C-alpha cells in the first residue's frame, strides 16, 4: 500500500497537494460537462453528479490498480512467501486513502449550491464503507483477470466505465421513469450513487436497498473470487516472469 501511494503521489512537499487535487482532476471533466456545459436541471446538479462520480472513481481506480497488482508485485511473489490474498486488499485500501481527499470536493459542491448539512450525514461512514466493500469485491476478479488476460485490461476498464453510464450517474434515479428506471436500479452502482445523494443532497437516510444491494453483490463476488484467488495464488510464481 505504501509503495502504491509512493508510486501514485511521489515524494516531497507537493505530495499532499497532488493527493488533494487528484480527485478534482478526475471528476473535473464530468462536472464541467454535466453541471455547466449541458446545464442539467434538477436540484444542485453539480453535487448530484459529484455524488456519483466520486464513489465511481473509487470503484474505477481500485479496478485499475487491481488489474496490475499481481504483476507489479511479481518480484516479491517469486522471492518470498507471504499472504497474497492481501494484494487486492492493498489495491482497495490504497485507492480508499486517495478517495478520502475527494470528500473535500463533495463539501465544496454542497457549499457552492448552498446545500445544508443534515443529521443524515451520520450515515456517511456506512455509505463509505459500502463503497469500499464493493470496490474490494471487484478487486479480486480484477486482479485475477489482469494476471490471466493482460491484453484485455483496457477492455475491462472500458467495461467498468460503461457500467457508470448504465447506472444513475449522470441522471439521478428520481428523474427516470418506466423501463429505464428499472434497468438503472438493477445496477449496484445506482444504489451506491443514490445513497450518497440521499445523505448529502436530499438530507435523508439512505433506503435499505441502497446499502444492502451493493453489499449483497459484493458478498457474492467475494464468496466466489476470494476462494478462487486463494487457490490460484499458489500458482502465481509459475505465471509471473
Amino acid at each position, binding site marked *: 500500500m*505504501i*509503495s502504491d501511494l*509512493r*508510486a501514485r503521489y511521489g515524494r516531497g512537499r507537493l505530495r499532499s497537494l497532488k493527493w488533494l487535487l487528484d480527485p478534482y482532476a478526475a471528476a473535473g471533466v464530468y462536472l464541467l460537462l454535466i453541471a455547466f456545459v449541458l446545464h442539467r436541471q434538477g436540484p444542485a446538479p453539480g453535487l448530484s453528479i459529484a455524488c456519483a462520480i466520486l464513489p465511481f472513481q473509487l470503484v474505477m481506480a481500485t479496478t485499475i490498480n487491481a488489474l496490475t497488482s499481481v504483476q507489479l508485485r511479481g*518480484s*516479491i*511473489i*517469486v*522471492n*518470498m*512467501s*507471504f499472504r497474497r490474498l492481501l494484494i487486492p486488499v492493498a489495491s482497495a485500501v490504497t485507492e480508499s486513502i486517495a478517495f478520502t481527499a475527494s470528500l473535500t470536493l463533495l463539501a465544496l459542491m454542497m457549499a457552492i449550491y448552498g446545500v445544508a448539512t443534515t443529521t443524515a450525514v451520520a450515515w456517511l461512514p456506512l455509505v463509505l464503507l459500502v463503497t469500499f466493500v464493493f470496490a474490494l469485491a471487484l478487486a479480486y476478479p480484477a486482479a*485475477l483477470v489482469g494476471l*490471466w488476460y493482460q491484453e484485455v485490461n483496457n477492455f475491462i476498464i472500458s467495461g467498468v466505465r460503461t457500467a457508470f453510464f448504465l447506472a444513475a450517474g449522470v441522471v439521478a434515479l428520481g428523474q427516470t421513469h418506466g423501463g429505464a428506471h428499472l434497468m438503472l436500479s438493477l445496477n449496484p452502482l445506482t444504489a451506491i450513487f443514490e445513497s450518497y445523494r440521499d445523505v448529502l443532497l436530499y438530507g435523508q437516510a439512505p433506503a435499505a436497498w441502497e446499502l444492502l444491494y451493493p453489499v449483497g453483490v459484493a458478498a457474492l463476488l467475494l464468496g466466489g473470487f476470494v476462494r*478462487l484467488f486463494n*487457490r*490460484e495464488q*499458489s*500458482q*502465481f*510464481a*509459475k*505465471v509471473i516472469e
Partner: protein
Amino acid sequence: MSAFVRANGAGVRFQFDHQRRVVTPAMGRFRRAGPTLWGLRGVTFAIGPGEGVALVGPSGSGKTSLLRLSAGVLVPDEGWIDVGGRVGSLLAVQAGLMPRLTGRENASLLGVLAGMSAAETRRSLAAIKERSGLEDAFERAVSSYSLGMRARLGFAVADCRDVDVLVLDEVHDALDQQFREIVAERAEVIRSRGGVVIAAGHDHSVLGRMCERAIHLEHGAVVDDGPFERVREAYLQSVAAVAEEAVPVVPVSGNQRD
C-alpha cells in the same frame, strides 16, 4: 532450534496453453490446452538441523523450482514438502525490491510481508542498513542500485529475522567478493545454531563454503545426493561427457585419410 526441510515425492507441474504460455489451473479451463511439463517430479529428501545443502545441475534441471518449494513460494502439485523453522529467502537478484522505493522503505515493506510487526520492522532497520553495507545508499531509491547492491539489501532483509532456513538461488553470483564472505559467514552462523541452508548457483567455490552436502538434479529429478565434493565431481563429469558427445564428428574423406 530444530530446523528441517523434508520432501516426499514432491512435484511441480507447469501447464501450458496452445500458445505455449504457462497457465494456472483456472486459466487452463478458459484456454485451449497445450502440453504439461513437470519442472520437478518425485523429489524425496530430508535436510536436518545444521545442514548446508547445495543444489547442482544444469539450467532447467529444477533447482529454482525446488528452492521455491522450500521457501513456500510454490506449493507442490503432487507429493509434499514440510519446512520446519522460520524461512528467509533470496531467490532473485531483484530480491522482491520495488525500484521506486528507497532501501529503507523496501526493507520495511519486505519485513512486514515476511510476518514481522511494524514495530519489529522499524527496530530491525538499523541492523539491515549495517548488514547490507549500503550506508547512504540505503536512503536512495533502489532503481539507482547496481545488481550487487540489490542483492546485498535483499540478503540483509532475508537474514534480518534470525532465520532458521536460509534459501539462496544464484543471487550470490551477483555479489562482490567481500559480501560473499559475509553471506558465507552468516550461513555458517545459521547452521551452527541448528538452522538449514539450501543454495543453488554456478559458483561452486561459494557453494562449497556454505554446504557440505549436494543434491544433483537433472530433468526435475534427483539423480545424486551426498557429500558436496563427490556429487559436484560427478556432476562436472556428466557435464563434460555431454559436451564431448555434443562435439560434431567431421567425416573424414578417403583422400584426406591418405
